[in-house]
């Protein structure tokens, strides 16, 4: 499997550019060791033994460079493994390499990577989505069966939707963030991108759990594996938030998601209307909170301990030039926005105000979940756009995340599942669950998946 993966990557990744680093030798060595253990029999093998997995390049893995898609960390080798990486290793996974991302996970298309964009395997003139575009493309192209991404405002779900794969963002606190290069600490979560819902559930069991090194991680039993769906969605109430299906939503996407709702009803679910009025404010709330937290988290990239240093001047110049030259435009823009929002005189009106509206958004979800067990929305308002189409207008790019952002603000679990195509381009639908209810969420997602054939479709060109 690993040899096959490496071969496909060598053949097709020069076109797709899903990977920033391929750990060929180490992967083959690890695979051989698992083959040996398998041949010898004896002890049961761990759940992912020999499985090739790719890691988004904002996850620290010892022995592999970690760049966060940025020049400021080009060539940096982490001295430790992220907790999720350690768990994958323990479970027997073979770490194939690091995948491309928008710089510091800031973006919705992977075009903000300092090392060039990744292309969508369904149409290489289009974006794979972002910021976990490399991971999504790697799974869609069949390079690996599973990859890890991170999701702060939709960065797992949106690229999963754009690439026709499954992408799961767990409940905030479900998976340890130790070793994830932080973007916005109250929003970030790590999760799997896979071809099927069952695979995502399997990965989640490996990744989830309390970690003393992440104080926000929660002590809870791992969610059940998704079985043949005893019960499916019978008796479940699925909420449709009317105002989500509003302007900016492409007609093909709307039709596909409405059809998905009908499939779920056909499987025994009841559809109900729910109101989420504060959804209209989610974008500014997110961009004020996320950028504020980012401005703090990215203060550490200063040329002192690791990464790029631009020398030749005094201390202030070292900081300013290192950061000025090391960070790309979108990262600088967001640091500026966050710094402004937190600065004296503006903190109350911007940051705190956004935090208060965030509470209102959470309350809306809580109210919705008294009427429904799961919520159904499109993953994105559009099909994948072309490279360069939205890079001139940052605000236009931000609008791509309008359906995914509210979920991070409320800390809820959500999954994107393929639900159709328009002009050969994938469409994803998003199911959102109650906090820590990944079991019900994945059960419903799998029921939908098995009742349709979208999950069997593969982009033709990459075998």
């Amino acid at each position, binding site marked *: 499997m690993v040899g096959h993966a490496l071969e496909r990557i060598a053949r097709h990744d020069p076109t797709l550019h899903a990977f920033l680093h391929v750990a060929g030798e180490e992967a083959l060595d690890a695979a051989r060791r698992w083959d040996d253990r398998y041949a010898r029999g004896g002890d049961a093998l761990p759940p992912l033994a020999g499985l090739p997995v790719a890691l988004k390049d904002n996850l620290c893995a010892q022995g592999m460079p970690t760049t966060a898609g940025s020049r400021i960390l080009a060539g940096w080798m982490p001295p430790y493994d992220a907790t999720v990486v350690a768990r994958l290793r323990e479970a027997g996974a073979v770490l194939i390499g690091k995948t491309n991302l928008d710089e510091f996970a800031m973006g919705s298309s992977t075009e903000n990577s300092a090392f060039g964009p990744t292309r969508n395997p369904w149409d290489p003139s289009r974006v794979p989505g972002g910021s976990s575009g490399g991971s999504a493309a790697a799974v869609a192209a069949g390079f690996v069966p599973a990859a890890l991404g991170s999701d702060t405002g939709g960065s797992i779900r949106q690229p999963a939707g754009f690439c026709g794969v499954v992408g799961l963002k767990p409940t905030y*606190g479900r998976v340890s963030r130790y070793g994830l290069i932080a973007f916005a600490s109250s929003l970030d979560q790590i999760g799997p991108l896979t071809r099927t819902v069952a695979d995502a559930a399997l990965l989640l069991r490996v990744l989830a759990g309390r970690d003393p090194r992440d104080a926000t991680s929660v002590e809870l039993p791992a969610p059940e594996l998704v079985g043949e769906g005893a019960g499916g969605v019978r008796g479940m109430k699925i909420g449709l938030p009317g105002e989500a299906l509003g302007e900016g939503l492409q007609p093909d996407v709307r039709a596909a998601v409405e059809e998905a709702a009908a499939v779920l009803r056909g499987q025994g679910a009841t559809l109900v209307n729910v109101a989420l009025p504060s959804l209209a404010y989610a974008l500014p709330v997110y961009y004020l909170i996320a950028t504020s937290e980012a401005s703090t988290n990215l203060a550490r990239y200063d040329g002192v301990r690791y990464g790029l*240093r631009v020398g030749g001047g005094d201390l202030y110049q070292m900081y*300013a030039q290192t950061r000025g030259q090391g960070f790309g435009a979108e990262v*600088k823009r967001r640091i500026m926005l966050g710094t402004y929002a937190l600065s004296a005189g503006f903190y109350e009106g911007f940051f705190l105000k956004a935090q208060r509206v965030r509470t209102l958004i959470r309350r809306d979800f809580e109210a919705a979940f008294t009427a429904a067990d799961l919520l159904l929305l499109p993953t994105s308002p559009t099909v994948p756009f072309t490279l360069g189409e939205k890079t001139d207008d940052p605000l236009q790019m931000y609008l791509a995340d309008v359906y995914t952002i509210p979920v991070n603000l409320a800390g809820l679990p959500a999954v994107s599942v393929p639900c159709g195509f328009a002009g050969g381009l994938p469409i994803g639908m998003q199911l959102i669950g109650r906090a820590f209810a990944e079991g019900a969420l994945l059960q419903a997602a799998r029921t939908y998946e098995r009742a349709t054939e979208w999950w069997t479709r593969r982009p033709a060109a990459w075998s």
Partner: protein
Amino acid sequence: MSIDRATVDYVARLARLALTEDERERFTRQLADILHHFAMLQSVNTERVEPTADVNAPANVVRDDVPGRCLSRDAVLAAAPESEDGYLKVPAVIDTEPVP
């Protein structure tokens, strides 16, 4: 709400970001557009609404005050741009010139 060049320069200084002339121009315009879009938040009634800092509302999470393993100094210094005798090396921190 508007944002002018002087504000952009002030914020860039706070953020320790050296901007090119082109960036100062572009960011002034783009940040103004973005902030204009965000002005809608002002109309939301948040009287007596607490800010959400953390969705899971944890108490202070502490561990026992017992030394544990830490990163090896060699591994850490291997990544340092400049080091000497086991220390990180940077330009003078205390200087006669005030920071601008």
